[in-house]
């Protein structure tokens, strides 16, 4: 059963379950002749961490952008925290946040100035205390008054994460949050995301190329290929279905089109 098949048996936006953090229903995005996202559906329960996997051009970033309201779907519907996007985005944008390699924080502003501005945009109460708390949690204190442009890649990622957490979001969308980080910093960031989810019962949707990261963090994995959902299950169930011991092997099987034979073999 593919992700699309399974998703079609789940509640859709039309018969919405308000307990879902994100509901995507038959979502399509076509750029000229290219189907960037091709009829995908899924529903993410609150408090879950879901990994969105796929090679370059699989449609992960476009899917996340449609969930955020940055890209308008060609057809289909997205509902976030019980509200339709983008029509009711005013009701949810303050309750979610994101981090992406496609955006930066202003380089000339210091970390504190950047966090102050985003804190005000998100109407964070007791902002100075919140910034101090984040600086402590994410180890920013040493460079909090330094310009963002003068930070190392690891420091910038921690600052971007601080911005993503400034409003204590119920829903966090992360697009390759540990790309270009050394293993130590990446591990530290993953640990922080895990702690944040547990402490806040937050929902996290994570697009990543790092299979170990997804195995470690995610309750569920959605594998995309050429704009479609190729598979959708727990990491363990997916690995068992493909008769593999790591998600990396599954990823390669999907990317290289060795899917059907392996599934049949595993089923026997």
């Amino acid at each position: 059963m593919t992700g699309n098949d399974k998703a079609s048996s789940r509640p859709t936006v039309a018969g919405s379950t308000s307990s879902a953090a994100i509901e995507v229903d038959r979502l399509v995005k076509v750029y000229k002749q290219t189907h960037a996202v091709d009829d995908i559906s899924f529903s993410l329960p609150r408090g879950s961490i879901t990994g969105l996997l796929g090679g370059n051009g699989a449609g992960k970033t476009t899917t996340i952008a449609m969930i955020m309201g940055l890209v308008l779907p060609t057809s289909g519907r997205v509902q976030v925290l019980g509200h339709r996007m983008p029509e009711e985005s005013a009701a949810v944008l303050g309750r979610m946040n994101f981090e992406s390699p496609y955006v930066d924080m202003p380089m000339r502003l210091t970390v504190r100035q950047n966090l102050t501005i985003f804190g005000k945009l998100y109407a964070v109460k007791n902002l100075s205390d919140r910034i101090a708390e984040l600086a402590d949690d994410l180890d920013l204190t040493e460079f909090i008054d330094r310009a963002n442009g003068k930070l190392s890649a690891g420091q910038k990622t921690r600052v971007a994460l601080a911005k993503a957490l400034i409003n204590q979001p119920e829903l966090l969308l992360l697009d390759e949050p540990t790309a270009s980080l050394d293993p130590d910093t990446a591990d530290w960031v993953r640990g922080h995301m895990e702690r944040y989810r547990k402490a806040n019962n937050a929902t996290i949707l994570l697009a990543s190329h790092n299979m170990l990261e997804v195995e470690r963090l995610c309750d569920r994995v959605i594998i995309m290929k050429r704009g479609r959902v190729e598979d959708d299950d727990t990491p363990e169930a997916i690995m068992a279905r493909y008769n593999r011991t790591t998600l990396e092997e599954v990823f390669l099987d999907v990317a290289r089109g060795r899917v059907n034979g392996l599934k049949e073999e595993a089923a026997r």
Partner: protein
Amino acid sequence: MTELSLHRGLSMQRIGAMILRYWYLLMSSWPRLLELLYWPAMQIITWGFIQHYIALNANFFARAGGTLIGAVILWDILFRGQLGFSISFLEEMWARNLGNLMMSPLKPIEFLLSLMVMSLIRLAIGVIPMTLLALFLFHFNIYGLGLPLIAFFCNLIFTSWSVGIFVSGLVLRNGLGAESIVWTLMFAIMPLACIYYPVSVLPVWLQYVAWALPPTYVFEGMRALLIENTFRIDLMLDALAINAALLVASFWAFLALLRSAKKNGSLLSGGE
């Protein structure tokens, strides 16, 4: 960034946050500050000496003292007002920060209002020293125009915002490849706005086009004030009416271009 709502949920805190963002940027960069002062100062010095030379050699300009310097200052209000608006917008594109703003609760109207306030701040930094230079070097006191100056200023700044909103929408839709429009569009209306000469100089058919532009009314009004000592309130009211229509049209265009950018995914790229 949520859809436009003019009457609901407008947040002064969010507008203030954006102004603070640009203020921090301006204060952190002396080349940005210097540039604000440099070009207006060069303009007024160059044109001031030209006016001085002409006044020594021509009776008409001797009588119409200050029309050239006055026109230079008013043109700079128009041009720098638009640049002040658009450059603050471009700062977000250059910093790749637009996605962060679009995903925040900031509304387009709040974003545009903060850009308008920034254009006033940047204008004040650039143009006030320019007017003081005109006073001390060439004995031309623009503030001597009195209350009409407020009408001139308001009409020019409204036009500059309309152009600024429209070109920002174009850059939003087409990426930084369209950046040159920010620097050049105002110059396209320069010959038609009749800054340094009366509308009657233009061919009759072009005069209709000129009268469709609010700045034309301002420069005609300025000449009427300086040469004939008459404040033409009718010209100011006409300009205000056209400005109101232009502002509404530019808001509408910005929202349409934002929607188009969301449709074609250019908010994610933002590049060329």
